[in-house]
């Protein structure tokens, strides 16, 4: 095993200009496969979801899944693409056991959607337009297990085992045009593009796009050309990069590796490479077969897809607000910075905050609870924010109790803790734990008097004008009321009683 030479990222960018192409495969969330009625549900027994069509048995005939086509059109429209008025499927022939048919049904020179773009927003707010070459329909392959080699790798395996449950699940492959001009921000653009695409797919409701489950996978094509030149260099294709962070790391690694090869006078080999999560490196896979080796030809068993313009317009009318537009709208409504909005997005809190606001909370309070106490808990428990056992309606109720002065923040945190512990909804927890702000002015006044009497020296300082010292008395009162007083009101009372202006 040779250690791959790298040059520093800065040195690489000082000499070379990166050009990227991103290919993203999205598994659609249809109930059935693309060309047969087999279920796509996860977790089935091996080979329990196959039929003569997806096994490629003689005499079987494929029929296209209408929802698969509809999803493809929606994705195309959301990516600002032209939708073909007539297109065909094609057979991509290759000899590999992950497809029992010995070909993958795909689209070749007639994709259903083409020539679009997606605007992506970088963390500092800069918008970068990524042009889309095409989005086409195809099918997923079966799952191989390699037996007998080192650590389950295909190299050196004695034999392989195939489960075809996944073979035939609808995939949409989305291919960008060469992404030029991103310069040192290329890895960041790659990550932002995949993130935006994932949000878009989720907003369209065509797939859950969970990268960790392989429902969305990215291939990163990258080449370098000397700064100031036009001609693209030879590219490498890093396959199956399956998290947002990995997309960024893979692009960065390849920039550094290409630069090292080129600057030492070497040549980049056009090949596929594998990405390694552990150290962010890539290693060579097979040398890429030329496109004509796939011997594409129109699929004779499927008739052309010719979406009527009426259907396309109907689908266009159902498109949701684009995620980036929605985020910017919410950002303004909530009055938060680009950076804060990015954190909210990364935390998976956008929809939760929206739902909490819809349930009556004000945006600042909704954001405070989800991004503070609750984000901390989710992090501690290693779960997603949305998976916490508390609903936006419950969070809104807590916020309402705080706004009404029935709870202070400290008590509110205890209420949330109680809800998370399964003690019931916020009102039940307040009731059971006896968590109410002491708003009885009489009781509060007595507590304040006692605190003043017990801390005469501090009280004198305050009388003498050292208003800041009031904090100590507030603390004493809060302690005496076991935290169930409104701290701001306590402070007012203290200053009032000592005859000092706040």
């Amino acid at each position, binding site marked *: 095993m040779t250690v791959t030479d790298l040059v520093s990222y800065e040195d690489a960018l000082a000499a070379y200009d990166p050009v990227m192409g991103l290919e993203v495969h999205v598994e659609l969330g*249809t*109930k*059935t496969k693309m060309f*047969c*009625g*087999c*279920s796509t549900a996860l977790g089935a*027994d*091996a*080979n*329990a*979801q*196959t*039929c*003569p069509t997806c*096994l490629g*048995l003689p005499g079987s005939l494929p*029929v*296209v*899944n*209408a*929802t*698969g*086509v509809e999803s493809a059109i929606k994705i195309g429209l959301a990516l600002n693409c032209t939708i073909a008025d*007539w297109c*065909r499927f094609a057979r991509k*022939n290759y*000899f*590999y*056991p992950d497809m*029992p048919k010995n070909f993958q049904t795909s689209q070749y020179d007639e994709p259903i959607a083409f020539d679009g773009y997606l605007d992506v927003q970088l963390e500092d707010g800069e918008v970068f337009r990524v042009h889309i070459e095409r989005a086409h329909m195809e099918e997923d392959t079966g799952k*191989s*297990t*390699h*037996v007998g080699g080192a650590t389950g790798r*295909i*190299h*050196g*395996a*004695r*034999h*392989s*085992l*195939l*489960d*075809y449950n996944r073979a035939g699940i609808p995939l949409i492959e989305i291919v960008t045009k060469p992404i030029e001009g991103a310069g040192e921000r290329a890895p960041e653009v790659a990550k932002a593009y995949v993130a935006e695409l994932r949000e878009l797919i989720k907003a369209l409701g065509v797939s859950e796009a969970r990268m960790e489950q392989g429902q969305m996978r990215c291939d990163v094509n990258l080449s370098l050309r000397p700064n100031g030149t036009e001609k693209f260099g030879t590219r490498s294709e890093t396959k199956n990069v399956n998290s947002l962070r990995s997309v960024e790391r893979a692009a960065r690694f390849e920039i550094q590796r290409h630069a090292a090869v080129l600057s030492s006078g070497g040549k980049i080999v056009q090949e596929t490479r594998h990405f390694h999560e552990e150290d962010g490196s890539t290693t060579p896979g097979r040398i890429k077969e030329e496109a004509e*080796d796939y*011997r594409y030809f*129109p*699929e*004779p068993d*499927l*008739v*052309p*897809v*010719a*979406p009527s313009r009426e259907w396309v317009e109907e689908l266009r009318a159902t498109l949701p607000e684009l995620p980036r537009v929605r985020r910017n709208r919410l950002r303004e409504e909530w009055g938060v910075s680009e950076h804060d909005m990015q954190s909210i997005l990364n935390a998976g809190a956008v929809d939760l905050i929206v739902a909490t606001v819809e349930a009556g909370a004000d945006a600042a309070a909704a954001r405070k609870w989800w991004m503070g106490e609750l984000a901390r808990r989710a992090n501690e428990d290693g779960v997603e924010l949305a998976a916490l056992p508390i609903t936006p309606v419950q969070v809104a109720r807590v916020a309402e109790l705080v706004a009404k002065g029935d709870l202070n923040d400290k008590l509110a945190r205890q209420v949330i803790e109680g809800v998370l512990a399964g003690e019931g909804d916020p009102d039940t927890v307040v009731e059971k734990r006896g968590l109410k702000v002491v708003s009885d002015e009489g009781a509060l006044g007595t507590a304040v008097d006692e605190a003043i009497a017990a801390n005469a020296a501090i009280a004198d300082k305050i009388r003498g004008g050292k208003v800041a010292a009031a904090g100590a008395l507030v603390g004493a009162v809060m302690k005496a009321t076991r935290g169930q007083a409104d701290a701001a009101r306590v402070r007012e009372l203290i200053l009032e009683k000592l005859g000092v202006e706040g």
Partner: protein
Amino acid sequence: MPGITREEVAHLARLARLELKDEELDHFATQLDDIIGAVARVSEVADQDVPPTSHPLPLTNVMRPDEVRPSLTPEQALSGAPAQEQQRFKVPQILGEE
């Protein structure tokens, strides 16, 4: 009319994982050349305004609703497999050592 060369036949044979002897390559190159020549005559008679046909039927948009239909049982699915293991199709080594 460009035909098919012996090298192209050898390349196709490799892609299809067919082992052809030297004399078979010559034999098939000649035969395939004849076939391609015959098919090529179709484009001579077709005018520019006749699009290439991939389907004999004037049909488009044959689709089915996204409704689950029964699959084969794993036993049925594997019944024709030459070899199986762990309810999966067992296939020979795909790649050798690097």
